[in-house]
């Protein structure tokens, strides 16, 4: 079993901490090092899973199954993409095979907890809540790949090369997905987005 990474792997997409944790994983400290390695990725994974599935219970199933696949495939991970991009890619691929990971019953309609980062005035809360509801409604009209691409661009700030790597398509295709998603959502939300 390989216990260290080559210089080319170290200089690629992983931080020093990630490289060290990966080495520990391959040396046999599998459970603890894996948890430390992916703990910081849980939030983005859950967010993407909820976006793709539209269901919080199934999103949790999807994330768990993605982590299982990641655990099994981590020995072969070469760091050619960032850890997050690699995990996203696993999750997106799995999302196309719900029979392999769905174990929960569908949850109640997704209710997203929005932190008060906008600093909104209390009496505007109703308006903002409606805005978020319309956004969720508009996102449900997208295909899963469009939702995933739009999420990776707008939320994760990934460039189109990374989005293409996560979605297994070319950067041009990734841009098309984002463009199409954005157009559809803006068309449905036009009244609510006026400046």
């Amino acid at each position, binding site marked *: 079993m390989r216990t260290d990474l080559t210089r080319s792997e170290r200089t690629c997409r992983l931080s020093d901490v990630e490289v060290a944790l990966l080495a520990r994983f391959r040396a046999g400290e599998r*459970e603890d090092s894996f*948890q430390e390695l992916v*703990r910081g990725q*849980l*939030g*983005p994974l*859950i*967010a993407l899973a*909820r*976006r793709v599935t539209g269901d919080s219970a199934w999103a*949790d*199933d999807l*994330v*768990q*199954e993605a*982590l*299982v*696949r990641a*655990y*099994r495939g981590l020995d072969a991970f070469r760091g050619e993409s960032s850890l997050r991009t690699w995990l996203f890619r696993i999750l997106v691929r799995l999302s*196309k095979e719900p*029979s*392999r990971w*769905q174990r929960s019953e569908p949850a109640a309609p997704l209710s*997203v907890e*929005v*932190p008060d*980062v906008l600093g909104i005035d209390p009496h505007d809360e109703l308006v903002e809540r409606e805005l*978020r509801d319309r*956004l969720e409604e508009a*996102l*449900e*009209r997208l*295909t899963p790949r469009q939702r995933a691409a739009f*999420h990776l*661009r*707008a*939320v994760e700030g990934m*460039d*189109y090369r990374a989005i*293409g790597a996560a979605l297994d*398509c*070319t950067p*041009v*295709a990734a*841009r*098309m*997905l*984002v*463009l*199409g998603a*954005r*157009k559809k*959502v*803006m068309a449905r*939300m*036009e*009244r609510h*987005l*006026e400046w």
Partner: protein
Amino acid sequence: MVNPPRCDFSDAVLAHFLDGETNPVEVAVDGSTRAWTGEELARHRGECDECTLQLASARRLDALLAATSDITVSEDMADTIFEGVAARLRPEVAGSSGSSAWHARWASVAAAVLCGALGFALAHWLDDSRDREFVVTDASERVPPRDVPSQPESRPGVLVLSGPRRPVRFESSVRSVTPEQLEQAFWFASWTRATALGWPRDLHSLDVGARDAADRFRLRRILEMTESLSGRGLQRLVESIESSEGELRDRIVRAVRGVDDVRPRLVAALRREGASVVRVASWLGGAPLDRAIVDFVGNDAVRATEVAEAVAEVQDRPGRVDLLLRMRDRLSIRGGDDDFALFGQWFETQPNECSHQLLVALRDGRDAEERRACLLALASRADPSTAPALFAIVEGPRQHEAELAAFALGKLPVDSDDLARRELRRGYLRVASLACRRDPIASRHLRLMRLTDEERAFLEAGRFNAHQFEIAVALCRDRRVDPTLSDD
């Protein structure tokens, strides 16, 4: 109010200011296409209220999406997730790679029923009148325990009864499996708990007649439900059936598909819920799946991106290229008549291996139209790895294909400078390709050509589409003055 974008520059403005695109962005204005620099786009944005509003709205949308996607993972939540992962990794849980959650669920039910069956056998010796549940599979009649013959044929887990004058039926004790587990496993609530949909085949020891009877019963129940469902209910039914497997699922799908008034409602319900082309095609029937896709999209207006996504779901990746080429003549896609634009859109969304598959199709294909389609697709993908093959075609014997290959070379990313360095037998094609990419070397050749002002401006603008490239080739071939540009 912000209206849907009408300005031709809106997409380019978003690409540059929102997505950080630094390369010039192509814009089609009044039938002609050229690339606009960031400075030009900034100037336009300053003059166009619509683009300014669109950009502001898009930025607000991105911020809103980011705000609604902020997930904070507590320690407890993380621990719960990792516990779930550990449970899935444990060998005794049938959730390992390659097994489905359906099998995991049935493994536990099977174990419970086996225990129940053993208990039943023991109870049968001890108490003949013990309450058991019976199911009749070829009729709706329930048979009470007292009518069960005293000498049944039994096998582990299942009791099979048969006789010349009795209906074929089977029974099993299910007291060790909770009703909630059965309700979860059998997606519709039914008193037919023992034989309801999804009973594991490996536990069945039915004879063929009983199994067929059970299937007929299930199909009848499903069709009864299907006919009364609409909209969301139909959607849920479809999802539940799709989650089952094997021959039974296939038979159910065929039966539902055959109900005339269900078919259009089913399609409408699926499309309304955003079902993919592949999913709808799988319900409409036809094998293999790619034939169903071709039939569906040939009769239903779909968008180019939907086609691309549908083809991306085809498991056999070499088959994707064949599928798209076969669909080329059957599709009715909104967006225009330009073959290149439509075809290019489909191929642009294919995985990276598609370039290789297109080259294989070029190498092995004999049909001229299909080869032409492959070259146009390669041009849209702009994959630098295809350059060596394209150069070989430019130098090849087929004039028309040489021009298309040169067009594809003209679309490669600007950092691929093989074209600038290489001398080709058909020198005028090289010049046209360089002009297409707005390569500075092209201007050196253009100075040596006899061109009108309009023709020179056209060639210097570059960024040609397929039709424009043909014009550029003709100009480069016919107007050259420098003898080094000759093709012999």
